[in-house]
């Protein structure tokens, strides 16, 4: 008898501890997703132009799931201590629904990260950078974003300046190849924003032009956000799985 009492208390303690961890992780998930939603990085207009904002959907779901996890963890602690069958059943079912939502958010974030290949950005850049009759504001914004990106990160194009040579582009149709083998923003600029050595830049002499591609600068922050939402969500779900199994076992052992 004493032994089964101890077992009960240990199980209760474990479940309470598990719920405390879930509650804290829920708050952390909410905070992280609020950060992702409200803190767009410099390349955000490029992402918007790809019309693929899954990462934001995933982050918004994450905010609400985090709050739900926190509330449910409090319910779970109360239910375990009171050993009430109905409360525990309510807790289990609501947790399962939250589990499903967080699963959706995590998978969406991971899929979004996969869809942002260099080709997506290259196509967008070639077709819309410095487009002469901008259809809408987003083309202007795209041009400004690329110029900022290339100046700040000392990079050129998506894979390198050769992008501008290998493909025709909206830029190429208004700027001759002899004068602008690649945009001026690819040149090393001085404090006034003028190329340090224009001939050196046009020739492609190393030191006077940016030879790296900008893909790393774009995908770095995007990937960080997507990984944060996807993998932290996954970790929380694994822990929640264990706590839920324990709760179900505890429920089945409670005297009616």
């Amino acid at each position, binding site marked *: *008898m004493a032994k*089964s009492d101890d*077992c*009960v208390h240990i199980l209760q303690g474990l479940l309470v501890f598990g719920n405390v961890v879930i509650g804290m992780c829920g708050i952390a998930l909410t905070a992280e997703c609020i950060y992702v939603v409200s803190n767009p990085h410099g390349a955000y207009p490029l992402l918007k132009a790809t019309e693929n904002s899954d990462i934001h959907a995933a982050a918004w779901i994450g905010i609400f799931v985090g709050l739900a996890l926190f509330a449910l963890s409090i319910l779970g602690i109360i239910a375990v201590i009171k*050993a009430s069958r109905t409360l525990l059943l309510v807790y289990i*079912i609501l947790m*399962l629904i939250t*589990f*499903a939502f967080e*699963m959706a958010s*995590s*998978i969406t974030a*991971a*899929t979004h*990260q*996969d*869809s942002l*290949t260099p*080709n*997506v950005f*290259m*196509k967008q850049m*070639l*077709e819309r950078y410095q487009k002469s009759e901008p259809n809408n504001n987003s083309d202007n914004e795209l041009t400004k974003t690329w110029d900022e990106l290339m100046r700040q990160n000392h990079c050129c194009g998506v894979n390198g*300046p*050769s992008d501008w*040579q*290998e*493909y*025709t*582009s909206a830029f*190429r149709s208004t700027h*001759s*190849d*002899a*004068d602008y*083998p690649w945009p001026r923003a690819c040149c090393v600029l001085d404090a006034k924003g003028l190329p340090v050595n224009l*001939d050196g830049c*046009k*020739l*492609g*002499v*190393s030191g006077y*032009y940016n*030879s790296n591609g900008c893909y790393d600068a774009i995908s770095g922050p995007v990937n960080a956000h997507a990984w944060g939402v*996807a*993998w932290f969500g*996954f970790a929380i*779900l*694994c822990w929640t*799985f264990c706590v*839920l*199994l324990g709760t*179900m076992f505890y*429920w*089945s*052992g*409670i*005297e*009616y």
Partner: protein
Amino acid sequence: TMLPLLLLLLPAAHGIAEVGPRPALTREQLEGVTTASTFVLDQPRCTFKDFGDAVIWLVVALDKDASKFNNSAGPGTPETAFQRFPGAVSAYMTLNATLGSYPCPKPAGDITVLRVGSETSCAGDESRPTCNGPLPGPGPYRVKFLALEGSVPVAETAWSMPITLRTAKSPSSIPAAGSGHSAGMIAITAILSILLAILLAALVAMLVFCGSDSCGSSTFSKPESVTVRRYNTHHVYDQRAARL
């Protein structure tokens, strides 16, 4: 084999010295060695060092028209005007310089190149027939250097190897958004699906087997209190009734 023989005979016939090396695309590590309308040659340093009074011109021709070029054609004439290339003229002459522009020997570490096709301002200006304008197509082109004293050719290099410029593809040829799924995404999906399935199965099992209270008594119940009841056994009966 005919072409080298012809080249050997021509200088002998006209008294032109053939000097080397032949022009070539620069060996420097430059991103823009060839673009869609320009290319970069090494300067002819030390090539014409014996011809101090000559003006050195660059002759540019399409590969197929190279052998048709006549060395006595004068630069700056309609027959060698850039603006009429390649339709009306088969070769044009440009980038003139005196030997002083090409000091010999070349200082180590200097980048000494000529960019053919860099002048865009005079590309349509017929009054500038020696314009170094952008090349009109991907080529292939051949070039040679020709040294003139006055209007008399005195030295030349051999024609270069054919130079082909870059051709740009259309961006619609870039494959659309990649559909590759990374290992991480597949792992997340698979594992989470399995976990959810296990949880749902456990919930169903829990409700089916334990919903009607058949599980409650084993582990966590309090021990049953034993009640003792008084039994009246049947064989204790009224003895008086039996004697009557």
